[in-house]
């Protein structure tokens, strides 16, 4: 059973991790900018931009499925790993932006200002001072991205067919006219195991204790 699932586990692992990593990197940069700088374009303000990101998750996934299908088929990425990664970035980045904006808003502005005064330029202030202080937030955002990426069945089912098959799709595909409960149970257990391990590893980072004390 394990060997049958292995290639699907690796595919799912690659898609989830790549999409989560890119989402976290881009999402963190966007969130920092939204938290620290004021943007104005017509009636659009920072909150509107943040809402725009989150609004990508408000619509039911079925609404996005047809546009994604047409889009991926147009650029020839239907049933491919890259296509799936692109779609997952669109789905996961709002989560990263949402969590990180809230997190950066709670990191005192004085921390950045002190770094500037101490001689950093704004980029150095971000990656030398603010980012190390934001590890709990990054871990939370990362964990949400991995969970949502790993458990996604809908887009994996609609946008891939034979070349690429992610774990949830494969588990469902094991079903047949006579339900093989033993194989299904085992594969379901294998598919949730990574998430349980991730939860155990990151649990200690979830407390915000690491940040308290940066100010006061």
């Amino acid at each position: 059973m394990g060997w049958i699932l292995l290639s699907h586990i690796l595919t799912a692992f690659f898609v989830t991790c790549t999409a989560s990593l890119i989402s976290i990197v881009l999402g963190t940069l966007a969130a920092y900018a939204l938290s620290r700088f004021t943007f104005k374009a017509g009636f659009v303000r920072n909150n509107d931009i943040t809402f725009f990101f989150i609004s990508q998750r408000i619509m039911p996934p079925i609404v996005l499925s047809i546009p994604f299908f047409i889009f991926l088929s147009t650029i020839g990425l239907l049933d491919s790993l890259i296509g799936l990664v692109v779609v997952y970035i669109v789905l996961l980045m709002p989560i990263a932006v949402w969590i990180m904006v809230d997190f950066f808003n709670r990191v005192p502005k004085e921390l950045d200002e002190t770094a500037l005064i101490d001689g950093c330029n704004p980029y150095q202030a971000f990656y030398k001072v603010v980012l190390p202080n934001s590890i709990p937030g990054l871990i939370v955002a990362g964990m949400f991205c991995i969970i949502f990426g790993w458990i996604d069945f809908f887009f994996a089912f609609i946008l891939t067919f034979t070349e690429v098959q992610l774990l949830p799709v494969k588990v469902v595909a094991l079903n047949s006219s006579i339900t093989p409960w033993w194989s299904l149970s085992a594969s379901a257990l294998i598919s949730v195991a990574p998430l349980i391990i991730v939860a155990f590893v990151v649990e200690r980072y979830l407390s915000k204790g690491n940040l308290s004390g940066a100010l006061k």
Partner: protein
Amino acid sequence: MEYTMAKIELSNISHTYNPNDNNPTYALNPFSMTWENGKRYAILGPSGCGKTTMLNIVSGLVRPSKGNILFDENDVTDLITEERNIAQVFQFPVIYNTMTVYDNLAFPLRCRNFTTQKIEERVKSVSDTLRLSSFLNSPARKLTADQKQLISLGRGLVREDVAGVLMDEPLTVIDPDLKFRLRRNLKEINEQYKTTLVYVTHDQNEAMTFADNIIVMDQGQIVQVGLPKELFEKPRTTFVGYFIGSPAMNLFNSEIFSDNSIKFNNDTIKTKTDLSKIKDKNVKLGIRSEFIKIATDQKENIVRVKVTRVEDFGNFKLITGKAGDLEIKSKVEREIPISTEELKLHLPAEKCCIYSNEMLVN
């Protein structure tokens, strides 16, 4: 170009946080000021009077709406913070809590590419001064609030070559004994390295004991700049008189009686001020409670009061008395017995300040 040990000039600076409004409210009204190299300045004023905005403008965290900032005659208004070589310490401790105490103190030097040897030497010197030597290898986040503030202070002082060290109520969270010692240390650092120190506070005792010059601010305006003695004895406005000194200056509504005397509450008080040129006859008499004493054999400038309260502060007694509707406070030595209900108080002419439209008449 890095500015070291500079004369800091603020020229026609003003600032508003809502510049696009039709009627912007100014956090700082236009003013000009020069901070000489190597001196100690205290900015004193109530909360929200623009003290912090002024510091942020000098350090470059805030760009002034109008005016220029000059370091040694060079315009730095458009320079970003890290190019100004300014140190600033905030009211509450800001530490890099992922680093050790040593790394926190070394951070400003590392950012400016100092040699390892120089960094070690400076961190040692500053940590000795601030009594942080035994914590150098501890994670900064594990320290107490006042120790964290010492780290903030240390980061401000670790660079010897800064154009100025700006401190925004840095000792608020520090206990009184250490506070006293740190103020002395700051003075020593200023005398040794000739670093310009600017110290924002709303504690007048702190300002009086620390600074060469005190800048008093109110509602975005600089009300008076002067030596501690000048501010205490000759406040330029009634606000300064009220704000500086504990208790606040006695202020009485009075009328001009002659060229050198005023009348309040049926008593005539002589002053050393020439009152002949004042058009408005309604003025205010201001006098510190420290200068009002119980009359012994004086004949002039006597006010009879009914004692309403006597408070013993340990090293002095504060008498509160009523003369008609007016309340007069007088600080007297604690040994003097005050038994009578009625007292004669003497207001020395040379200590009386006359205010017309809230401004001191010279």
